[in-house]
């Protein structure tokens, strides 16, 4: 079913590894050239920056061209027109994506990715327009089609985010139905749990490394989805649910990151580890709200000190293990990609700074600082 053979995907993944090893000085450039000859594929690829730019312009072109045709043909915004136009656009986008991969052998090039995703959106829109009464049915139909489409583009093109989007669409269905708050959250959580379990099982059965990595990413994303729909403090209003469900979700906000860490450490799955690190932080931030305890201005200080203490403690504990590692985990940087990830962190720090610049010293303006202008402070 997939447009790329497993051997092609394996070679592409291995090419990336070999380049990373060379950047990390585990191989020399001459060896890289030799190994790359052995890993040759006829697919065409590009780098991340151009890929993102191509996605942007392809979406722009896809939307503008359809709008242009609608205007030239003088189509009105009738239901039939919407069904026809969005349906035909979906077929066109998908066909183009297929052709680009088949003829030009594009692989994660941006253009075919944007077209495939746009096709799914257009199919969902078409179905939603077709069944436009009542609104809930229309939305559910659209989401179901989008979910099926997401799975299709995952199977066909290997876009893992298609499968992730599919899970999100399925989980969004209960929110369209006239259900109680608890039922909505439970069903959405169930959808993510099923995806998570499926990905977990498929990962275990997967014979190929590339597939295993795809399922790991999908599992991590579904795990995050499961947590996010079940942490009731992430909603804007006080959730109107029964006590049992409320406290059940509170227990889950602790249990999920703990279980996630356990699985991630057992499987040595960094995607799941990273996700659960974030989820654990969210649990620590929201648990006071769950317990209806008052917030204090020093809470972030304690939280920050705790995070720093955990980081330093874990690092020291791992480094003290035999060979500077425990259970295979080391605090040392092994590959150059870790340095690149830190560069991203530094770039983020440019925009996110906890304390803003000094502002006009008016005692009346008691502000909490702002981002940017890092340094001298908030207004007090």
């Amino acid at each position: 079913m997939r447009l790329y053979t497993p051997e092609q995907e394996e070679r592409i993944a291995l090419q990336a590894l070999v380049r990373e090893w060379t950047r990390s000085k585990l191989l020399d450039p001459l060896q890289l050239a030799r190994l790359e000859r052995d890993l040759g594929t006829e697919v065409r690829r590009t780098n991340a920056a151009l890929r993102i730019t191509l996605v942007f312009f392809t979406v722009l072109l896809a939307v503008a061209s359809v709008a242009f045709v609608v205007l030239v043909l003088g189509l009105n915004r009738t239901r039939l027109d919407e069904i026809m136009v969005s349906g035909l656009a979906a077929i066109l986008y998908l066909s183009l994506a297929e052709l680009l991969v088949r003829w030009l052998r594009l692989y994660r090039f941006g253009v075919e990715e944007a077209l495939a995703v746009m096709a799914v959106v257009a199919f969902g829109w078409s179905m939603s327009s077709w069944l436009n009464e009542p609104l809930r049915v229309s939305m559910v139909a659209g989401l179901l089609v989008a979910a099926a489409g997401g799975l299709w583009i995952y199977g066909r093109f290997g876009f893992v985010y298609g499968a992730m989007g599919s899970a999100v669409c399925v989980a969004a269905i209960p929110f369209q139905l006239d259900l109680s708050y608890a039922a909505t959250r439970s069903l959405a959580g169930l959808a993510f749990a099923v995806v998570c379990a499926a990905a977990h099982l498929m990962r275990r059965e997967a014979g190929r490394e590339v597939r295993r990595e795809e399922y790991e990413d999908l599992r991590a994303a579904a795990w995050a989805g499961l947590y996010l729909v079940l942490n009731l403090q992430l909603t804007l209003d006080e959730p109107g649910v029964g006590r049992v469900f409320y406290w059940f979700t509170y227990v889950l906000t602790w249990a999920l990151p703990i279980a996630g860490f356990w699985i991630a450490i057992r499987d040595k799955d960094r995607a799941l580890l990273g996700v659960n690190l974030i989820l654990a932080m969210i649990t620590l931030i929201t648990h006071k709200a769950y317990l209806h305890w008052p917030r204090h201005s020093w809470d972030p200080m304690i939280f920050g000190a705790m995070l720093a203490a955990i980081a330093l403690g874990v690092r020291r504990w791992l480094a003290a293990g035999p060979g500077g590692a425990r259970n295979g985990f080391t605090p040392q940087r092994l590959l150059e990609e870790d340095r690149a990830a830190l560069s991203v962190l530094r770039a983020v720090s440019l925009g996110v700074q906890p304390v803003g610049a000094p502002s006009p010293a008016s005692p009346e303006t008691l502000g909490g600082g702002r981002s940017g202008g890092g340094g001298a402070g908030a207004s007090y």
Partner: protein
Amino acid sequence: MSTLRYLERWKTAGAITADQHDVLAALVRKDRVSVFVELNALLYAGVVAFIAGVGWTIQTYFASLGDAAILSSLSLLFAGCLAYCFTRSAPYSNDAQESSHFAFDYVLYLGCLSLGVALGYLEFRFHILKQNWDQYLLLSACVYFALSYRFDNRLVLSLGLSSLAGWFGLRAGVHHSLFGPIVDAASLRPYALAYGSVVVAAGVLLHRTGIKRHFLEAYLHVAANVLLTAVLSGVAVSEHQWLYLMVLCMLAGLTIVQGIRTRRFAFVAYGILYAYAGISIQVLRGIDGDTHVFAYFTLSGVVVIAGLVMLARRFGREE
């Protein structure tokens, strides 16, 4: 074929040594997994949360805590962090340096943030610089730049760059002493252009003199976005649209060429996106009717995508 089999085959063929095979196979088998990034992220989040809590607590309880307690605590924190860094750092070098300890960069970052809070509080309570209170930003930017170079710390460099940006903005907004008061986007533009030019000039100059060459990219990312945004705003709202468009195209062209030359494709993307936005704004001024607007986006979209595909095939292979 699995990665391990490839490695075995390469070892047998002599493409890699037995030692290399062992190291790489251990990585593939996940005998060793690094949590370096995760621990760094945790420490960064910890420092940011801690200092946010410090600011919030001072803001809430400054009356009961007292000036002496607040300022002495912040000064002690700053001094402690600096003392830690000076006693544990390697001597200064113009080249990139590995941190002597895992937490080193974050200790310095914490110290710099605490200095920021202290300076803000000082002015809030004692009005020492009064109307020139924004000079604190310039002062803190200078301190951050000095410390970032001394200790090779890009987190603190980011702090310095944003403090300098804040100084340019506030200098304009509060004192309007350089290019007149800021009342709209147009009046902010000269300050943005000045800031972008200063940043790019400083970055290039320091790079040419061989001082922390690896910092250049941070300067250029900031400068490219600020300069291109400023000129783009000139195309959007200025009376001299054509002049700004010409400048935008020249700047974008330069960014694209340099991006290709140095294989920093983020700059290629900046150039393309800003230039496209500027040209589109100007073209759409002369077009009326939705049909023409969508025709423009369709045609221009095809042209840009075709150009990008050619560019990607010729220069922008996967990294």
